[in-house]
């Protein structure tokens, strides 16, 4: 806002010097209103204000207490006199149909409620396909065949092992902590950054549902900013690694991996740009970039179950199954042997044998003679 004011003052000064006259004061242009309502007050993310049909009382009420996505603007930011001025200015602005920007045409469908509904649908979609994915992976791991052994091991013990693995190997990324601290930091920034963003979103939905403007020092503002910064930093390292690491192409998933990394990069950068531009008062671009940010987050969520995003839940789950299978073998509840270089091989071999016999049409009781 201040930069804009300085710029306008200089411009006004120049104009006055050149033409030798004082220009009329443009409070609307100098306020943060313009960012959402457009330079010619024909709308942006917010509705057009030119030739407004609102009474001054209604106008004041909306400005002071906010409405929908519009934050409440207090007297420190806009004095009562300036508010009156803005109202007069916008009421007198001409109605220019062709000036209504696309951002408003898209944005008028968006309120905090509609946005949260859209994201609820996206999360539902993501959740359904993630669950479908997880059942695929558990089928690969032969989890159904492992269940009787887990029952013998004891459910409490099994759940304990699985939870420990999910926390240590998954959430704390134990294997990287031991092997590669640099990559652990990168994973930490992304995982805990994401968790921070998610937590912030939940807290904002509870404590600030109208998304009113908050000071930078407010925990509700600080948490998403710090988390977003962590994600941005993490994703920058991932991007760097994708450029640098010549073995990043594993011959199968490169396209999907790139999609995920790029979407994540766009989400992080656009999110950061929105906050920065808003703080700098460069309002013209805020809403367009905000819409872009929302669209990238939406795409990131709905493509999640099909991109490298899925390794966030697939890897911990698969490692947990490996730990469970190792525990089953180590306690000897399965077949009596206490060592198995490929955990789960015995029940997978039995499954293969049954499948082959079915495919070649042999029926009867199946006995595995030995497991090499």
């Amino acid at each position, binding site marked *: 806002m201040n930069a804009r004011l300085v710029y306008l003052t200089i411009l006004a000064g120049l104009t006055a010097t050149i033409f030798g006259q004082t220009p009329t004061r443009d409070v609307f242009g100098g306020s943060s209103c313009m960012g959402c309502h457009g330079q010619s007050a024909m709308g942006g993310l917010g509705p057009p204000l030119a030739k407004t049909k609102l009474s001054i009382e209604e106008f004041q009420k909306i400005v002071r207490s906010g409405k929908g996505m519009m934050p409440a603007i207090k007297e420190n930011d806009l004095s009562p006199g300036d508010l009156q001025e803005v109202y007069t200015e916008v009421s007198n602005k001409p109605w220019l149909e062709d000036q209504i920007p696309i951002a408003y045409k898209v944005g008028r469908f968006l309120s905090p409620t509609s946005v949260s509904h859209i994201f609820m649908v996206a999360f539902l979609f993501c959740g359904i396909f993630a669950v479908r994915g997880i059942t695929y992976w558990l089928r690969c791991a032969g989890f159904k065949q492992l269940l009787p052994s887990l029952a013998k091991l004891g459910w409490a013990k099994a759940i304990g092992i699985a939870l420990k693995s999910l926390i240590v190997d998954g959430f704390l990324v134990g294997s990287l902590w031991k092997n590669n601290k640099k990559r652990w930091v990168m994973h930490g920034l992304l995982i805990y950054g994401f968790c921070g963003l998610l937590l912030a979103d939940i807290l904002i939905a509870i404590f600030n549902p109208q998304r009113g403007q908050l000071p930078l020092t407010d925990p509700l503002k600080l948490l998403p900013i710090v988390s977003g910064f962590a994600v941005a930093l993490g994703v920058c390292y991932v991007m760097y690694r994708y450029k640098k690491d010549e073995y990043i192409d594993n011959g199968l998933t490169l396209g999907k991996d790139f999609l995920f990394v790029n979407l994540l990069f766009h989400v992080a950068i656009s999110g950061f740009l929105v906050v920065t531009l808003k703080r700098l008062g460069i309002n013209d671009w805020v809403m367009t970039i905000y819409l872009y940010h929302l669209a990238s987050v939406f795409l990131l969520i709905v493509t999640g179950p099909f991109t490298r995003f899925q390794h966030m839940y697939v890897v911990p789950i698969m490692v947990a199954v490996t730990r469970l*299978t190792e525990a089953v073998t180590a306690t000897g509840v399965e077949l009596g042997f206490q060592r198995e270089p490929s955990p789960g091989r015995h029940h997978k071999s039995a499954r*293969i044998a049954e499948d082959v016999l079915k495919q070649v049409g*042999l029926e009867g009781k199946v006995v595995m003679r030995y497991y090499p």
Partner: protein
Amino acid sequence: MPRLSMLIDLTRCIGCDACTLACKQENGTPFDTFFARVLNVEVGTYPDVKRLYIPVLCNHCDDAPCLKSCPNKAIIRRPDGIVLVDQDRCRGTGACVSACPYGNIILNREPDSWYLDEDEPYEKDFVKARLKPNVARKCTYCAHRVDQGLKPACVVACPTTARIFGDLEDEASDISQYVAQERETTQRKPFHLLEEAGTKPAGCYLGPMSKQDPHTLHQTDAIGDAKTAEMARVPQQGAKK
């Protein structure tokens, strides 16, 4: 684009485990590590019992779950279809072990032990340089041999030529010819292990023939060699007349 594949004819397998040993010898795998295994299966109850040998090894899947589950991108699929675990990149996380529906990825938490007290030069210079401790290992389709134009060790060692290796995309390859020939003579079609897993394995199998016609057996003796097949067919046609 070539697609290397291994066809295993269950009719021909006699369960001698020569492939298992050849693999161990070629790859110098440590104690209790088997890339090529032979499952020994009994079906039915006495007196109606059958024994079936099912050689299993990494299937080098087109849509390999091990590769997709690897958090370190240590598993790669070469353009010819061979799926490899990069021993330097692998961190031994263990996700691939569970992800493989066939149980063909080996990850040993204990220190490796070999069979002899002292390393032979082969083990010291070739084997141990390739097999890093505490990381995932699996069959490589003998990529180092394939790159030199050789066939995998298990294929070469099989005394009954139950294993046929080659490029499925190339109609002139041993494997394509064998598949075509078996389809015609014994009406057997190759199948994959655990098709419902959706992994699109490269390895395929031909089922056992319970009733065998000696004439068709005679024909299938010639593997991928059109000339021998022709020679085998001539006296047979004469005998029919």
